[in-house]
């Protein structure tokens, strides 16, 4: 594993182009485009204000930079650095901006979600979509880029509009039986749209592409409901994480619950392997150390070595009881991710923020439990292999694969704390984002065998 040197970035804006060749980062109001392998700066663009959102177009030819305060969106071309495009929303304000899947239209959501403006880079045409809903996930594009689902709210009722991304033709418009729609998500095969209600009501509605209601699922009433939702890459399963700390898996044939994954505080009676991160504090030497050594020791003191130990069952998982008097309490399953080969599901329960649970989807049971020393901030699956990378806000990177688990120290100066982890689309490198810095980690081919050296 090789680590690159540390570069500056701001606002955690760092994206790899969809074709995997370039890396774009934002430093204040500058946009820096580098080559992914050599990390040489290829282009440097200057925007009019601090960039808040940055996105690559789907064909990796354009980059969108949005500055919400000023209501500006600037688009830069990679092929022609002289080319420019500036969209000024004026007094209507800007709340979010994104590309359409064809990479030639920009969708701007105005302030107060008054409307969504579709700007075209090919023609002068401008389209407006009224009454978009301000919710957790109001817009979703299907994976093949053909359709867009938009949540709307009019007259105290929720609707979903399906648009054809080609010419923004309204294909279907139907009302949903939700109290307060919280989000829409297409299945990866683009044929089913999952619509879920806000956390006050546990309800998931499944609509077919042509607007027919296929099924409704509601696990219980009254208690706080759905917190997160994830489709499996083959569209076979829909995982629903809720505030009661359970994940319910629905199958795509009958849309009924196949199984329920619970996150209990004490684990026993499973075939799962429990990995616990154990820190090895370096021994501070005696008083007659020279200053030089003190300095080096100081940096290593921050970076305590750690390794994984396998704990025998039964294991008690540390639980943090949340303050239930506040809204959006820190309970329930907040993040879930399926591996790309559809075989594993990683979940995190906010009660036990230091623990990541990995489930085997073939036998629908718990496979591994990773207990870290601090709260897990982010985890992501390798897009090619069943390999999970996670970070907990310290200077280490953790990797899990079915062969084993490893913790890697990020060799960066000055206390680089990994806040988030993103895989490169080829699965050969990782981008580690700190508060103001970023670092790339290049995996070596044959990485899987190397992982066994720490703990198996």
């Amino acid at each position: 594993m090789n680590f690159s040197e540390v570069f500056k970035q701001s606002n955690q804006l760092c994206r790899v182009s969809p074709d995997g060749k370039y890396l774009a980062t934002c430093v204040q109001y500058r946009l820096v485009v580098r080559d992914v392998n050599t990390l040489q700066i290829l282009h440097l663009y200057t925007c009019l204000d601090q960039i808040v959102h940055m996105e690559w177009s789907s064909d990796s030819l354009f980059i969108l930079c949005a500055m919400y305060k000023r209501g500006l969106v600037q688009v830069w071309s990679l092929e022609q650095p002289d080319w420019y495009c500036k969209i000024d929303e004026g007094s209507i304000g800007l709340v979010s901006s994104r590309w359409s899947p064809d990479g030639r239209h920009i969708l701007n959501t105005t302030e107060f979600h008054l409307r969504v403006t579709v700007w075209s880079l090919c023609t002068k045409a401008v389209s407006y979509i009224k009454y978009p809903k301000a919710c957790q996930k109001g817009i979703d594009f299907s994976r093949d880029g053909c359709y867009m689902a938009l949540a709307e709210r009019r007259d105290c009722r929720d609707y979903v509009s399906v648009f054809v991304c080609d010419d923004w033709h309204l294909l279907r418009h139907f009302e949903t039986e939700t109290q307060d729609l919280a989000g829409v998500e297409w299945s990866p095969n683009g044929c089913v749209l999952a619509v879920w209600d806000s956390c006050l009501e546990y309800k998931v509605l499944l609509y077919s592409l042509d607007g027919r209601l296929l099924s409704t699922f509601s696990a219980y009433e009254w208690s706080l409901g759905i917190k997160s939702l994830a489709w499996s890459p083959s569209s076979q399963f829909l995982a629903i994480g809720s505030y009661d700390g359970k994940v319910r898996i629905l199958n795509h044939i009958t849309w009924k619950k196949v199984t329920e994954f619970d996150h209990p505080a004490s684990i026993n009676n499973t075939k799962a392997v429990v990995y616990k991160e154990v820190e090895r504090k370096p021994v501070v030497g005696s008083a007659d150390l020279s200053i030089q050594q003190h300095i080096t020791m100081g940096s290593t003191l921050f970076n305590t070595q750690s390794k994984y130990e396998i704990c025998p069952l039964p294991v008690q998982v540390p639980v943090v009881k949340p303050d239930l008097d506040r809204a959006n309490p820190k309970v329930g399953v907040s993040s879930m991710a399926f591996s790309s080969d559809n075989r594993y599901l990683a979940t995190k329960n906010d009660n036990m923020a230091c623990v990541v649970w990995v489930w085997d989807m073939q036998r629908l049971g718990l496979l591994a439990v990773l207990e870290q020393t601090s709260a897990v901030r982010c985890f992501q699956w390798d897009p090619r292999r069943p390999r999970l990378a996670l970070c907990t806000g310290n200077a280490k990177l953790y990797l899990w694969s079915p062969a084993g688990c490893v913790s890697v120290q990020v060799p960066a100066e000055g206390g680089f704390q990994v806040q988030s982890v993103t895989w490169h689309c080829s699965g050969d490198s990782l981008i580690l984002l700190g508060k103001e810095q970023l670092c790339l980690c290049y995996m070596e081919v044959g990485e899987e065998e190397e992982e066994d050296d720490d703990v198996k």
Partner: protein
Amino acid sequence: MGVFMHLCRTTNQILSKSGYRMSSLRQYSQSSVLPLPMTRNPYTMPTISAFCTEDNVSECISYINREVSSLGFPLLCTESNNGPELNLVAVLNNVYNLLQLHRRCLQTVEDIEVEQVKSNSNMDYLQLSNTRLKDQLELSKRENTGLLERERQLQLKVKSLHNCLKNEKEEVQKLQSIIASRATQYNHDMKRKEREFGKLKERLNQLLIDKKDKKQTFEVLNYVGRSDGKRSLWKTGKTEARHEGEMYKTLLNDYDSRHKDLLMENAELKKVLQQMKRDMVTILSPRKPSQSGEKHDDSLEQTSSEEDEVCDSSRESLELSCEHAREQLTNSIRQQWRRLKSHVERLDSQASLVGERANMNAIPKEVHEEEMDRLKLEIQQYKDFIHTQQQLLQQQLNSPCDDETASLLNDCYMQEEKERLKEDWKSFEEKRKNFEAERRNFTEAAIRLSHERKAFEEDRATWLKHQFLNLTPFGDQMKPQMSKSQSALSGWAESEVRPMSTPAKLNKSLSHTAFSTSRASPAKTPSTADLYRTHRLIPEKRYPTHDLDIHNRSKLQSIHIHGR
């Protein structure tokens, strides 16, 4: 003597009234010296001859003296010189004393009798009360047990009610916490909405106050082509129908693929079931000779199952999705499974019997040996099977060496396809490269055009400057030239305007523009040098040209051309 006899007789008669006194006297008299013949009946007086006769008078007298003296009475006879003489007074006194004594005894007897009666009645009374009290006690004991029983039941009821109460309390608490969390969520959401509403109101106020509304603007150097290179189409009913069609196509494709997957799964599961059935049949068939009781049934069932099997395999090969065949298969499997279960249960019971009886060792051993033989046979069969499979595989691998022509032919076909595919790929690659080049050219041209436009603007600015500086009206000499320049300009303006509508056309015209600068055909876009020349020559025609310029400018304003 006769008097004495007479006295004895009368005493006896008086004494005969009460029987047992006589008996007691009799007993006493029996214990004394004189044995007298007594009759059994206590109430009959013994005759005088029994006690006193002429022979034993003196003895009698002495005896009576003795008795009387012991009683404290005066003696009967005293000793005189003629022998013992009977004292009449003493005798009478003795009799009188005896009578008194007797009366007193009778009195006491009566008293005792009365007392006895009294005590009897007391006892009766006590017995009665005792029985009554016992009954009462019994009753009260029963009542007590009954009450205890009721108390126990009530306590049970109390416990269960406590539990119910606890559950209800927990339920209430849970519901309260749910309500509380929902309330906080509602409050939070409401506050958020209120904040947003407040911001909206502020913004609205702000907009009402400053009338200057910053409109939306869109500035771009030039429009880019679509990523797939196609032109965008007009929105007609046809496109809508096409979209609908495509949508349904996607759905149908998805359903088809799922249907295929399910069919495959079904087929595999059926195969597995059949395999299971066959295995079960083979497991159960060697049991036939060993079972004594169910032999008959087994053989019957075996034949029926074999028939089933035959029927099933033939039917299944024909219609895999036939409901009837499916049901038959599942039924036969269930049958086999039931038999297997009963067989295993039998074995289990046999094993337990073995555990109890020591001399039953012979039978399980037999069974065990049979099992071993059967397993060995099975292993051999499987080994043979694997061997034959290996041989066949080897044959398969080796056969291509013999069948060269067939393999060559196959390769040929594949070769052709491969070649075709390669060609297709090549052409596709070429096309893609061309397209990329074209697109690049287009973008370059667009940028060049924009630069040219900039230059033109500058030129125009300078020309206008010149115009303003050289205000000299001229004659109509240059009219034809003016018309020529006009047409040239209009042609140029048109070619300017056209690209704004369709980028594809722009492509051609711009490329034309790019390449035509060298050619400079008069009907098409003139070069800047030409323009300058014409303008220089006909400065008085600046007004019409100026109008044209304004016309152009208004058309171009919508595009916001800026120098960079």
